[in-house]
């Protein structure tokens, strides 16, 4: 037995030694003699594959010329991991974050400013649609560039509209077009609500909580804002916002809180064939341009209503739309002069503070922002383009036949990005809590918003006090030197 034992020990020791000496080393597949740019990105699955295509294109062309190799890495919780790595002094060269991190990270000194690099590559204010350019800046410094943008619009089920033509007409509504004002939306929604034999809701014309991803931005369609950038103060309990959330709450009141909750709990997940919009449980929804891709994957029949997909190639957009059971229109606004209002969230590329290869990293970021590359990426991801100039080809061949609606919305003066406040994570959490309480009928909008205003103002004042104390110290230190 002793011999067996010693043999096993020897075998393991050999294995361990073998792994140590000959084992996989980090970066084994990297090419030598080039600058390796590490790129941490949030995307997985299809979206990751699509971005990796762009990365490969870069490595084979501009990268090869300039001796740069970009290494793409999918990271979960990319924003938190980037922040800690930056704090540790070993950040990636490029991080693919969300627009919500721009103000937050910039304010705590976690990003490299990009103004010089951008202008050196000919990227300036006129290059982007205004709403995106503004949101890439914080306190007049450029901190990020867009990787893929988005805008939000009204998606509606044309087929159900047609099927419910009589009901709609009886309510004085036109089944051949989407609602154009918010008041009309409410009437369409009510007419399209359907009850089952047991008196329970079977179908909702519209439900703000479904999918409810943009509830915190509802004020955009009421001419309101949560944060006043000029005055640098919160305006949570402004009348426009109260109106906005009273409107959200009206849907719970209309359906009854318990039946609404029960109705929602039975709904399928977003990324499944039981997606409520796809199965018709909900007739109208607020969504983004990527929806076309998801519908194509999960409920392909909805996008092949009249003829096979291949025939769409080369068709005019108006003709293509006959093939779709669903359509897109601007989400109606309740504010005067507030047409074509939309919320524009987007994905960004940033260079964390202390990145080892700033200039090389920006070469890739600039490449992604080249018109042809950006249009390729946005087409693959099924999103609109952030650039001011858009090619006709992009509009014609885009997988989403309604992309021009999104383009128009993204260029509209009423397009609004996420409020540029550095404590956004706390704002988001507070607002989500409050909004949930409002639509679960646990609190009245005005009172609840007032509370949030008080709480967030306190947090904001604290944050600003610390920041200015820091600036004071830094100035004093600078003065002494």
């Amino acid at each position, binding site marked *: 037995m002793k011999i067996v034992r010693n043999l096993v*020990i020897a075998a393991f020791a050999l294995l361990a030694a073998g792994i140590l000496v000959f*084992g996989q*080393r*980090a970066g084994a597949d990297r090419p030598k003699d080039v600058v390796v740019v590490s790129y941490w990105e949030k995307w997985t699955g299809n979206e990751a594959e699509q971005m990796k295509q762009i990365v490969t294109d870069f490595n084979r062309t501009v990268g090869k010329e300039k001796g740069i190799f970009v290494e793409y*890495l999918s990271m979960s919780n990319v924003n938190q991991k980037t922040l800690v790595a930056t704090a*540790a*002094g070993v950040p990636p060269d490029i991080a693919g974050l969300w627009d919500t991190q721009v103000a937050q990270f910039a304010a705590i000194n976690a990003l490299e400013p990009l103004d010089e690099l951008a202008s050196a590559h000919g990227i300036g204010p006129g290059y982007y649609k205004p709403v995106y350019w503004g949101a890439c800046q914080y306190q007049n410094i450029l901190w990020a560039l867009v990787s893929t943008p988005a805008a939000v619009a009204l998606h509606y089920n044309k087929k159900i509209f047609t099927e419910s033509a009589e009901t709609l007409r009886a309510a004085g509504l036109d089944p051949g077009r989407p609602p154009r004002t918010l008041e009309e939306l409410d009437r369409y929604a009510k007419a399209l609500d359907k009850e089952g034999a047991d008196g329970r809701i079977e179908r909702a014309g519209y439900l703000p909580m479904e999918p409810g991803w943009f509830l915190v931005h509802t004020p955009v369609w009421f001419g309101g804002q949560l944060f006043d950038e000029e005055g640098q103060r919160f305006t949570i309990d402004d009348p426009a916002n109260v109106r906005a959330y009273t409107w959200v709450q009206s849907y719970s009141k209309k359906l009854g809180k318990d039946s609404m909750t029960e109705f929602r709990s039975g709904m399928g997940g977003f990324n499944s064939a039981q997606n409520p919009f796809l199965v018709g449980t909900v007739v109208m929804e607020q969504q983004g341009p990527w929806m076309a891709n998801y519908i194509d994957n999960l409920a392909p029949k909805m996008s092949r209503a009249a003829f096979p997909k291949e025939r769409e190639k080369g068709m005019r957009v108006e003709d293509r739309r006959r093939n779709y059971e669903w359509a897109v229109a601007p989400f109606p606004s309740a504010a005067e002069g507030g047409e074509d209002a939309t919320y524009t969230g987007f994905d960004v590329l940033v260079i964390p503070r202390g990145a080892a290869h700033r200039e090389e990293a920006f070469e890739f970021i600039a490449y992604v922002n080249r018109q042809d590359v950006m249009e390729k990426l946005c087409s693959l991801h099924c999103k609109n383009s952030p650039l001011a100039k858009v090619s006709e080809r992009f509009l014609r061949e885009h997988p989403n036949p309604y992309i021009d609606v999104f383009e128009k919305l993204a260029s509209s003066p009423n397009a609004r990005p996420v409020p540029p406040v550095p404590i956004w994570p706390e704002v988001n959490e507070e607002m989500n809590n409050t909004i949930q309480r409002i639509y679960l009928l646990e609190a009245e909008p005005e009172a609840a918003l007032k509370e949030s205003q008080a709480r967030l103002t306190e947090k904001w004042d604290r944050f600003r006090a610390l920041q200015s104390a820091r600036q004071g110290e830094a100035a004093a230190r600078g003065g002494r030197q």
Partner: protein
Amino acid sequence: MSVTTREDATLPGAARAAGPRPASYQSRLKTERLMTHLGLMLIAVGFLLPFLWMVSTSLKTLDKTMAFPPTFIPDPAVPMNYWTVLNSPKIDFPLFTRNTLIIALLTIIGTVASSSVVAYGFAKVRFRGRGFLFALLLSTMMIPFPVTMVSLFSIFRWLGDHTPIQWLGTFKPLWVPAFFGSAFNIFLLRQFFLTIPEELSEAARIDGCSDWGIFRRIVLPLSVPALTVVALFTFLGTWNDFLGPLVYLQRPEQYTLALGLQAFQSQHGGTEWHLLMAASVLVILPVIVLFFLAQKTFIQGIATTGMK
């Protein structure tokens, strides 16, 4: 004191001395033994089941893991899962294994070397203040890691900025401190060194040997079993360490197995349980094998820590 091999087959001395036992006593004893056996068997099965379930799942296909009601025997059995795990793009198993081994090796060398030296000082050199310093040593074992976690992170960052040596972004924060002794192992070795008779050291001293010489030539060779315990425990500790790598390893290419295993855990549902279990088995295997090779040493070491 070898705990695993000692079989207590003796009856209490008093009963033996009392002569032939009555039948009722015999049967009562038998029942007691039977009950104990049953109890232990039940408990042992309970302790073993998770392992068996883990192996069973690791050999299933993904849809079979989702089958309801769950079955125990995988059908079909897919040992390929293990190959898939080793080649998985999600978790670079070979790389993480190598990383873990490097850290483990360095930590073991550092711990054994430094802890033995310090333990000798505590055990064999009489000097003023020794008691105080030893109490200090023991008290450091009570300091929770979080207290030093944040400031160590900050110190390592400062060192990286102000010296030519980078700390964060390398393995150093994990193994360098091992070269400065670990309280637990110093304590263990000190207890052991105390059992080495003074006469040996005295004899060597008379021959003109320095303390360092005594340490190197007499105490160390006699301490191989204890040093093995230290090496074993250190290996276990490193292989198992999660919080340390989580805090100090920022770049994915440096991850250890403990960190990397998490990659199979999906945030949004759709965890590939069969692969996750296979990967877990691979991570557990070296530890189990090590245990069976060095049972006595393990048990000895743990028993010693409990005493005194």
